[in-house]
């Protein structure tokens, strides 16, 4: 039984596979007694304590005492928020906000499909790979220039978003014992992050951040004046392909770890906030990274303190930071 006041079980002692990742067998081993139950890992970080009969409001001290348990998801939220925030500046500037939503839902569908294949084939393909494959496929569809004058690209984005969300729920319905996990991936309600998911997020985020730095000037020129850039010999189509591949890569690993809703929020709201207050693009990129990291970290802490679902709390903090940015921009203008 877990109490906020009691020393938590070290995260490395948790059987994450039995708690978070679905198994191909409907008779999955029960959760260890000392660890939170599977249901306590979905919802708010403090829900384990509440469900165990501790109805008192969690305190900051409880959170600090349980840091070993919550360290990984906080680090994951901070890193994912920072890198998605920086990447998001280029997504927002390219007027492709909902592309990330459709790509993250496609990644969530990829994870669900991996679980389904595990049940039917007796072998679960790596969910992150399935997430990346579907995210990349969605990106490829969206990157294609429509030859039709009848439907704008937004319509295709909408189709992919709705189609991927609906399919993920349908697939989730066929793998009942994993339904909670699918919900966690779609809405970001997972409280804990498995060590291998954290490692994947750290490695891919580092790669994406370095690539973003290397491509920075090309991304700016190709976005600001695509034809001028092409005339000066820049490989604009390849630069765009690289951007959307980076988006698919980052979105797929972070969706598996923290869920589609916070991933979409991190890739849009911090960038919007930064672009609202900054007149300099390099500063906007850095500011978006900071706002994304804050959204991930503060979101998790607020979910713990106020017993909110994690993903929704992280998205709400990101929305709150955007509201602050709007107020700050207004105040600066009127000063």
């Amino acid at each position, binding site marked *: 039984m877990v109490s906020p006041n009691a020393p938590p079980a070290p995260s490395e002692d948790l059987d994450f596979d039995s708690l978070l990742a679905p198994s191909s067998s409907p008779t999955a081993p029960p959760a260890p007694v000392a660890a939170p139950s599977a249901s306590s890992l979905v919802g708010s970080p403090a829900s384990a304590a509440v469900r165990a009969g501790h109805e008192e409001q969690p305190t900051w001290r409880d959170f600090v005492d349980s840091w070993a348990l919550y360290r990984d998801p906080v680090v994951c939220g901070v890193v994912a928020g920072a890198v998605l925030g920086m990447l998001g500046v280029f997504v927002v*500037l390219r*007027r492709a906000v909902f592309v990330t939503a459709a790509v993250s839902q496609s990644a969530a569908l990829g994870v669900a499909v991996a679980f389904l294949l595990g049940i039917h084939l007796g072998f679960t393909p790596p969910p992150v790979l399935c997430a990346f494959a579907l995210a990349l496929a969605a990106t490829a569809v969206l990157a294609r220039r429509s030859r039709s004058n009848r439907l704008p690209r937004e319509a295709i984005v909408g189709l992919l978003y709705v189609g991927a969300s609906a399919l993920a729920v349908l697939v989730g319905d066929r793998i009942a014992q994993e339904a909670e996990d699918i919900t966690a991936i779609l809405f970001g309600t997972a409280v804990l992050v498995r060590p291998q998911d954290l490692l994947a997020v750290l490695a891919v985020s580092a790669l994406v951040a370095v690539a973003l*730095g*290397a*491509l*920075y*000037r*090309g991304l*700016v*020129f190709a*976005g*600001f*004046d*695509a*034809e*001028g*850039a*092409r*005339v*000066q*010999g*820049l*490989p604009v189509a390849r630069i765009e392909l690289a951007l959307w591949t980076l988006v698919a890569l980052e979105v797929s690993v972070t969706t598996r770890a923290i869920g589609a809703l916070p991933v979409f929020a991190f890739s849009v709201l911090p960038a919007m906030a930064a*672009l609202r207050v*900054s*007149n*300099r*693009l*390099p500063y*906007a990129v850095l500011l978006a990274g900071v706002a994304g990291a804050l959204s991930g970290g503060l979101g998790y802490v607020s979910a713990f303190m106020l017993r909110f679902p994690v993903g929704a709390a992280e998205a709400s903090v990101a929305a709150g930071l955007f509201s602050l940015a709007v107020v700050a921009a207004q105040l600066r203008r009127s000063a």
Partner: protein
Amino acid sequence: MKPSELTRPELFACQRLRVGIGGRAILPPIELTVKAGEFWAVVGRNGAGKTTWLKTLLGLLPPVSGHVQSARDVRVSYLPQRSGLDDLYPLLAREVVSLGVERGWSFLGVPRARRHEARVEQALAEVGGSSLAEQPFRSLSEGQKQRVLFARLVAGDAEVAILDEPTSAMDRVAEREAFELIRKLQQRHGLAVLVVSHYLSIVREFADRALLLDADSDQVVVGTPEQVFEHPAFRKRYGDFAAEARHG
């Protein structure tokens, strides 16, 4: 034609070039040669095919038939119509100028705060835009933006400047100033300039070669501005304005 003009290097040659969209030609075959230091004006009514021809010349659109031959490693700068630039990007004027320096894969690398600083400062000074360097590009007036974009082509050490309606959002005075600046840059750097413009009296004053395109009547006329303005196809398309163009 002056003897010195015969020896100017050829930068672009259109050979039986037909341009169009989606494989459908919109103009008859075009034969012309653009040489270093020439000032070309491209005229025609809206929808005449001017931008389509420019984009084909630049390799942004494939030719329907025929060829565009360009000199090896020719450095071209293109200033698209205003709508081609995205004002959402929060860039300083000097950052916009520094984009002109990028060629091919040169953009790869560690971002630096003041890349090509000396070159950018010199280019801005040359167009009288030093005071604009630290200002957000999107908050500049149309005339100031054009000045910054001219600095971009100077910073890129361009041999050919292709400008698609660069003065479309300017008043007459600002437009004249812009053309005077273009001519100054052309003479100082030996630039070949191709400008799309609707202001015919300005074309007559500044250009030494003109190209009339008219998709509606399937006409292409190449010559000096005077020859083009005297052509029946021009008179037919421009009506009363044709006389104004001929006499200034």
